[in-house]
């Protein structure tokens, strides 16, 4: 079997999956991408064993993020660039195309070049109001809020209307799509690396800062420190925890930028991290900001953590949540449906109302006060990952799914 993965970035969702398909089943995995990403970065094994091609979008605007009315045009330009790239590579003739549909799979013109089925990775369908980017009514209003959500799904709809099959990583993600499309979207998690993210020895220092064994570490991880992932809510809860306990260090991994929302509007033009720190008034000395870290570093940080906070709004569930659970950490997550799909409160983790930072802090303090009492939650989380979300469990059904679609 020869799969061509289409994605803006590499490795993103598909790098590790392709490596597993190549190693386990001898499949040839090709990639057509625009950029190599740094979250995570490609591993040497990926670069060595996977067939990676890059394409450029000649019409791409100078700014990374176009104005919202132009997003669809950018998508169409991307579709055109993908088709042009495929035309220029007559030797690249896969049995199946798997395309990331995060902002619409750029497959509109692929059937003009390739005669094979196309699978869309249905990552997410944005809500028109009161969800994802429009969930944070507590923040200052953002100008695009009424308009953006009604058009951001246009690329997704265009690609989905013509797609033969799709898959989402979780049931909740699948259910964000209009009901009319759900019958052709299967749920297949793409696998967490439970060997890398596993319980193990605790570091005595993080990023050069000594962390004595008696220090309690509370972790927060997101690609970007932004409102959609509840960074400001984390700070508010952390501030309460810090005031109650002097032995807590908050370790934060993530870029100081917004990947999804309108934090520039919310923060009046300031970087959201700066705005949120100032708003909450927390003591910076209690925080260790790591910026972006490698998967290996992240695994070590999580192993040293005593509690992990996951305070996202309802949105695509972060890899970091699965990584933390896989590490056997006690995770305190926001009480939102996508988290409830993964964490059973009191069994595999803890859940508290997203905006109730007093409750979040109170729950966190209980965990920090009596780790032994809560340790079974971490062990159950690890077992759950092994049973439901590990690469060993996830890759085989995905392989079967791809084979089924390719055979149509």
């Amino acid at each position, binding site marked *: 079997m020869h799969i061509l993965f289409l994605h803006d970035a590499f490795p993103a969702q598909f790098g590790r999956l392709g490596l597993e398909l190549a190693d386990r089943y001898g499949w040839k995995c090709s990639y057509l991408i625009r950029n190599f990403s740094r979250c995570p970065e490609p591993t040497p094994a990926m670069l060595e064993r996977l067939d990676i091609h890059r394409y450029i979008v000649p019409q791409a605007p100078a700014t990374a993020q176009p104005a919202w*009315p132009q997003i*669809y*045009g950018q998508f169409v330009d991307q579709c*055109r660039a993908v088709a042009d790239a495929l035309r220029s590579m007559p030797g690249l003739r896969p049995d199946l195309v798997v395309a990331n549909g995060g902002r619409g799979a750029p497959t509109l*013109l692929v059937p003009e070049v390739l005669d094979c089925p196309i699978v869309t990775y249905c990552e997410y369908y944005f809500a028109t109001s009161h969800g994802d980017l429009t969930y944070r009514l507590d923040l200052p209003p953002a100008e695009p809020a009424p308009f953006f959500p009604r*058009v951001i799904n246009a*690329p997704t*709809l265009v690609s989905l209307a013509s797609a033969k099959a799709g898959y989402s990583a979780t049931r909740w993600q699948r259910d964000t799509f209009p009901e*009319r499309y759900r019958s052709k979207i299967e749920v297949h998690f793409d696998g967490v690396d439970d060997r890398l993210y596993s319980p193990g020895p605790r570091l005595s220092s993080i990023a050069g800062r000594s962390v004595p064994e008696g220090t309690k570490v509370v972790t927060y991880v997101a690609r970007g420190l932004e409102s959609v992932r509840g960074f400001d809510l984390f700070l508010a809860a952390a501030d309460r925890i810090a005031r109650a306990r002097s032995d807590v260090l908050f370790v934060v991994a993530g870029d100081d930028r917004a990947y999804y929302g309108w934090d520039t509007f919310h923060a009046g033009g300031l970087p959201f991290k700066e705005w949120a720190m100032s708003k909450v008034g927390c003591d910076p000395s209690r925080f260790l900001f790591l910026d972006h870290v490698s998967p290996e570093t992240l695994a070590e940080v999580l192993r040293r953590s005593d509690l992990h906070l996951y305070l996202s709004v309802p949105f695509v569930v972060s890899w970091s949540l699965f990584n933390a659970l896989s590490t056997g950490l006690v995770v305190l997550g926001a009480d939102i449906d996508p988290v409830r799909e993964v964490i059973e409160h009191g069994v595999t983790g803890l859940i508290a109302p997203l905006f109730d930072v007093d409750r979040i802090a109170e729950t966190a303090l209980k965990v920090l006060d009596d780790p032994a009492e809560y340790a079974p939650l971490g062990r159950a989380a690890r077992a759950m990952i092994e049973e439901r979300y590990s690469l060993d469990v996830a890759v085989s059904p995905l392989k079967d799914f791809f084979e089924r679609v390719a055979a149509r």
Partner: protein
Amino acid sequence: MSQPPLDLVCIEPRFPGRLGGVADWLVRRRGYRVRFFCNQADPAVQWPEATGRGIEVVAFNVGGVARETSVEWPKVLERSLCYAYGCWEVLEGRRPRPVDLILGRSNGLGSSLYAPVIFPRTPIVQFFDTYFDPDRREPGDEAERRPDTYRHWRLAANAVELVELENGVTPWTATDYQRSLFPTPYRDDFHVLHDGVETRGLPARHRDPLTIGGRTIPADAKVVTFVARSLDRLRGFDRFVGIVDRLVRAEPNVVAVAVGSRVADHPFDFAHYGRDYPLILLGENPPTSLERLWMPGVLPPDDVRRLLARSDLHVYASRPHPASRSLVEAMAAGCVVLAFETEAALEVIEPGVSGLLVPTDLDEASRIALGVLQDPAAHRPLGEAAAERVRERYSRDVTLPRLADLFDRLASGGR
């Protein structure tokens, strides 16, 4: 069911467009109040009777790429958003109250997309014209002539319809054929109901001399008519000219009248869009007698009705595309209609009963057309059956009460 008057907001890029006639009927027959938001308006002679007397026309501006004559295919949605945003600005500024229901038609240009931002709980009924299925030979039937950019435009243009279909609207379309163009997952949602044509006060059929566009059709003329928004290739003006050319050679008294703008305004007629198509066509293929092919341009609706009442044969030569209102209006006038066979025409006409359907062979079509002109009495029942079919199925007095029922149900759900 009683149908109480409602406060209606109509949104369509152009007035009166397609919704103007609906609004007019609702105002005059059901006592509605209508605020009609549009970007442009046709000349006043085309406005319906209730304009200014129940229909308030409110203009909105558009900016950005919507100001350009045409846009590259990647920008089709951006252009629509300019319309949607322009309409939103005026709605936001005026905040009309109360509003029981919003009736929108985007016609590929976006319109009511942002109305829910201001009226989040007001029901929206959205009229949908067409969807471009890349696997279906529609519109037009000559795929090999289409350049890549045209095919790509068709693929990309569906985004407008899709975001509107997912905007919490009740989708409405005029015919089963139009509904069948949309992706299967959406079809069951559609309310299929023709918006109807006016059947009250139609002029009686006659053979008197008739002055149209400054020229008089003599009493002994055999009148062959063609009516379209523009005399373009999509609606088969070239086919009409081909038939007329054959007819004038065989029949000395034929007068052919083609009503509509000379400027092809349908983007599907990609090769001639924005150009004087009759000039191009007749320049390339000079007709046998230009004297007998009249092109009076766009006529007031009453003049079109008088012309159709005098028509001996109406040619509906459209390539595959949703059926024109002119087809139904010609049938309402009792014309004998000769239509080229398409799915859309087949839905409206029962072949051999309420009209004649012909394949795309011009010689065959011309032969049948000649038969109609040479023996009108034998073909008159076709025209009478056509008029009866319209009275039963396509009259506004039949279709729009059903639409008013739908509006009432939706509006009362929010009360």
